[in-house]
């Protein structure tokens, strides 16, 4: 697939004075739709901005992951007419820059690239993905629920970005990850960064690394889960979990969807739409004649956890959890995947 841009240049480093950040963004906004973290009721949401000042780059996590601009919560697949069949396909997407994406979410996008970009590539996803540049931002702040460190997906990022920002106080260290990323920097006054800035970057990341409160032991996960399919914890979770689906709706690697035809009142034309679905919901595994393969909540909870930690590996060659902590933060019942694994591991 074309999505993964290859690195042809060794990561060059430049420095951007913080006060010039808005110039960079302004510059990007001329050519692209810039989507970045914007404050929303005490939290943050990735939104298309109209003014660089809207960006709040010191955010910890966003309500929905930036996945939402690539694999959209609602999407029209095509219009149809009962007599004529499929009527139109979508316009090519406008170029967009995902700005300030954290390492965990970049890793999640890489997983989505695997699920959506290979074997019958999903044209809607791929089209948008090809038109999306990623300006990532290393994490120097750590949230209460973050455990990317354990998953090897943060707080710093090695690849998958076009530009990578690290906040060094009054300056921002910018690492270039692709020719397209380099291109983004045209017309912005930059100074080459002395190599010692890498030491400064490491210092800040090390500070961050020491702040993690949550961890998940990833060694032998598959075996641990296989051995504990009947552990009593599942029954406790069955009683606790609300099956509300929130944990999966906010997950950056969840990709399930449902398809619904929306018919116009003329009963002839309409649109086929897809929208995010969730394995935590009762109807998800229900088939004709009312048979349901995962009627019990514990079966669904297991599906979520096993899928992330045991099944992704054979499917996509990587773990399915990037440690962003969103599912923990969103759960009314404080159900915590790191706790579950710790208990299964006998901790």
């Amino acid at each position: 697939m074309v999505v993964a841009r290859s690195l042809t240049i060794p990561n060059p480093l430049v420095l951007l004075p913080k006060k010039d950040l808005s110039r960079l963004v302004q510059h990007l906004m001329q050519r692209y739709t810039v989507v970045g973290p914007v404050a929303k009721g005490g939290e943050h949401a990735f939104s298309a901005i109209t003014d660089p000042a809207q960006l709040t780059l010191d955010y910890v996590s966003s309500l929905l992951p930036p996945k939402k601009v690539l694999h959209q919560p609602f999407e029209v697949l095509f219009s149809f007419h009962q007599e004529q069949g499929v009527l139109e396909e979508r316009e090519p997407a406008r170029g967009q820059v995902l700005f300030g994406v954290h390492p965990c979410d970049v890793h999640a996008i890489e997983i989505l690239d695997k699920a959506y970009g290979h074997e019958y590539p999903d044209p809607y996803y791929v089209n948008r993905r090809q038109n999306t540049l990623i300006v990532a931002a290393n994490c120097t702040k750590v949230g209460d629920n973050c455990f990317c460190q354990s998953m090897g997906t943060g707080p710093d990022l090695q690849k998958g970005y076009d530009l990578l920002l690290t906040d060094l106080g009054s300056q921002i260290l910018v690492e270039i990850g692709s020719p397209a990323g380099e291109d983004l920097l045209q017309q912005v006054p930059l100074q080459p960064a002395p190599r010692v800035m890498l030491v400064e970057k490491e210092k800040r990341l090390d500070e961050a690394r020491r702040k993690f409160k949550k961890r998940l032991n990833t060694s032998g996960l598959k075996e641990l889960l296989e051995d504990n399919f009947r552990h009593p914890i599942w029954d406790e979770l069955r009683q606790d979990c609300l099956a509300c689906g929130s944990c999966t709706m906010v997950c950056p690697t969840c990709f399930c969807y449902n398809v619904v035809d929306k018919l116009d009142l003329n009963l002839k034309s309409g649109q086929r739409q897809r929208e995010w679905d969730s394995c935590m919901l009762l109807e998800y595994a229900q088939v004709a004649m009312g048979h349901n393969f995962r009627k019990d909540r514990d079966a669904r909870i297991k599906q979520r956890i096993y899928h992330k930690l045991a099944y992704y590996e054979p499917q996509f060659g990587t773990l399915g959890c990037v440690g962003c902590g969103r599912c923990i933060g969103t759960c009314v019942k404080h159900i915590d995947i790191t706790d579950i694994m710790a208990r299964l591991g006998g901790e």
Partner: protein
Amino acid sequence: MINPFKPARALIRGVQKETYDTTTYTLSFEDARVREEFAFQPGQFNMITLFGIGEAPVSISSDPDEGPTFQHTVRHVGNVTKALARLKVGDAVGVRGAYGTGWPMELLRGRNVLIVAGGIGLAPLRPVITQILRQRRDFGRVELLYGARTPADMLYTPQFPRWQEEIKLYQAVDVVPDGYSWEQRVGVVTTLFGEMESQPADTIVLTCGPEIMMKFVVKDLLTRGFLSDQIYVSLERRMSCGVKKCGKCQIGPKFVCRDGPVFAYAELMGLSEGVLGGVAG
């Protein structure tokens, strides 16, 4: 880039009522290019669209060598399948496919074949049977065990005499309602195991039917000495795409739409989430 979600128009060329709630449709693509490019294996399925109502995965029930038309045998149970029941010759539906793994036809060649089907589960197995009939000498002993709820639920009965010329057919029904005469077995399909001649040696088993039926079929066969890699099952799961995207059909690391629907039982038995009474049951 080709859009795997975009159905092509196919016209209904024939409508054959099989039972009170099941119909076989003969279809062909409207567009000549699509028609020519369309190829499938016995056991594969298509996604059938009724625009405005939805899409449903349905097995192809005809023989691949009988192109350029193909058939689907549909039981009318929900929105799409019931709406199909209202269509007639000349009407159009949307079709995309063929998807999924087929039955292991190459593996069957030169071996004995035991087919165990329940209800609508005979539909995806019919192309296997017709392929066998076509080159009967390529296969060893072939037996078909077919169970249905009542005699009225039996599919393809007019074709049975022709089949029986070449293969052995055993039938069973769960119940015989008043007014029906039934000379074959009454009971679940596994009760036919006592009658059949098939033995584990050099035999491949193909089975399709309700999950609960397949569970007992597999269990019984294992105790009779069949090995888990001799038994092939075709699974049903909910599907919204057919191409490994919507996630609905996943069982462990498997996507039923792509890694299946036909699986060797050996592939399933190790899965944590029990399928057909696998180890984790």
